[in-house]
């Protein structure tokens, strides 16, 4: 046995856009153990429900994360709507689904860029983010924001998208798919990329289940689970199957996200073709009472929402379990046995969002 040393990884590290710390226990160049530290920027946003009107709280919830901000707002709205027995207009459900899937596309393209950056493929990183800009342009045109949209409300959405604009978005989405093909082919087929991802950080089917993994981290190990199959928003009207890969390594998790980009683009197309005319919001009367649980699929995986109301304008409890929090045990599983040089790739492979985790 070699001499053991501890190498601190993060919280400030070139590969980490947000503060996550790992104490890597090393024997020579091999990792034999890892102890995580989070909590550097914990904000306690859940606690604010005791002081903010439940309608205003949605703007706080959107700020849990700058990548899946819309889906956080949507999840909160759906939880409160479920608690209050509100069934929003069908057009609002479709609009929410379109914005949610656009969020997934831009999140996955962002991650693919960061992953390319992690193994030093700078031009690939830039191309991923260049294509992602077109998604952000759609957000800006339809909501007025590129990061925080404030378009979701309890009872529907604040803004409609006219049918001419939707048809134009359908063309843009098709173009994004064609343009992304040249970039995503590199992740799937390039020899040097596969050298850094194939056989690295393997999580078996059973391990992924036992460790509580979610999202592409779970589906990359062959587990068929996607919260969208619950049929919330417009997903019940759309034709899709969970994307699954079986090898359980960094490559499999990458391919799941690549395929999900195209799946999301197809779901947006389906929504635009099926969206019904009508109202996009409804008046919601009264205050929330009782408790309600919602589960939804964010780009990084399942999110769990729990809310408890007491009939006043303030909730008594609001809880978010974000996907990154659920994927930390998987990260701890794949680090032992890895080379130090692979740690950045392994840390990124669960698509860590510390902003979500430090809600």
């Amino acid at each position: 046995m070699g001499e053991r040393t501890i190498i601190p990884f993060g919280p400030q590290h070139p590969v980490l856009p947000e503060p996550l710390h790992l104490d890597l226990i090393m024997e020579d160049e091999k990792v034999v153990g890892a102890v995580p530290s989070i909590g550097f920027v914990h904000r306690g946003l859940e606690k604010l429900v005791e002081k903010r009107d439940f309608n205003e709280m949605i703007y706080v919830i959107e700020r849990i994360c700058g990548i899946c901000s819309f889906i956080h707002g949507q999840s909160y709205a759906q939880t409160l709507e479920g608690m209050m027995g509100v069934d929003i207009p069908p057009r609002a459900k479709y609009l929410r689904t379109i914005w949610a899937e656009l969020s997934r596309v831009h999140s996955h393209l962002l991650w693919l860029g960061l992953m390319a950056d992690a193994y030093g493929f700078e031009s690939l990183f830039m191309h991923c983010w260049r294509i992602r800009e077109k998604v952000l342009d759609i957000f800006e045109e339809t909501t007025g924001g590129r990061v925080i949209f404030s378009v979701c409300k309890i009872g529907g959405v604040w803004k409609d998208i006219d049918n001419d604009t939707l048809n134009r978005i359908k063309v843009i989405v098709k173009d994004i798919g064609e343009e992304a093909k040249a970039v995503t082919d590199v992740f799937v087929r390039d020899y040097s990329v596969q050298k850094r991802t194939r056989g690295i950080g393997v999580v078996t089917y059973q391990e992924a289940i036992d460790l509580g993994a979610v999202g592409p981290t779970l589906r990359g190990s062959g587990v068929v689970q996607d919260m969208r199959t619950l049929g919330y928003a417009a997903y019940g009207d759309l034709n899709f199957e969970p994307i699954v890969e079986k090898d359980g390594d960094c490559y499999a998790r990458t391919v799941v996200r690549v395929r999900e980009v195209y799946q999301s683009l197809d779901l947006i197309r389906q929504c635009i073709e099926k969206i019904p005319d009508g109202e996009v919001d409804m008046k919601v009367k009264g205050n929330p009472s009782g408790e309600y649980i919602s589960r939804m699929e964010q780009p990084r995986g399942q999110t769990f929402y729990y809310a408890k109301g007491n009939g006043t304008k303030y909730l008594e409890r609001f809880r978010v379990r974000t996907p990154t929090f659920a994927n930390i045990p998987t990260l701890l599983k794949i680090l032992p046995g890895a080379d130090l040089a692979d740690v950045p790739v392994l840390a990124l492979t669960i698509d860590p969002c510390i902003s979500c985790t430090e809600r």
Partner: protein
Amino acid sequence: MTERIINPVTAEELVDRAKQYLQNGHRLIQICCTKTPSEMYLLYSFEKLDLTLENLRLDIQSGDTIPSISDVYFAAFLYENEIHDLYGINVSGMAVDFQGTFYETAVKQPFNIIAADMKE
């Protein structure tokens, strides 16, 4: 909460109930604590791959010590450390015990304090 089941559990039964869920093919998907002016409880959520969801509710009081289920579900240690740091609930036998340093908060046990607005 239609289609969702919440079963009461005591601290003495907790670990055995968790083992039963594991044997029945459930995954642990979260543990959270709720404190209101009138009650305090933990909610343990278990899910099957077919997405059916069951929950255990454990009524507690501030400063209580409860057993860890991280020997049954390894991932539980994260939730248990979180609950300890935010609510001051002691958890015995955690697989990884951060000794109160999981969250670096300016105020100790910040979620153990109920906002004045809500008390009114």
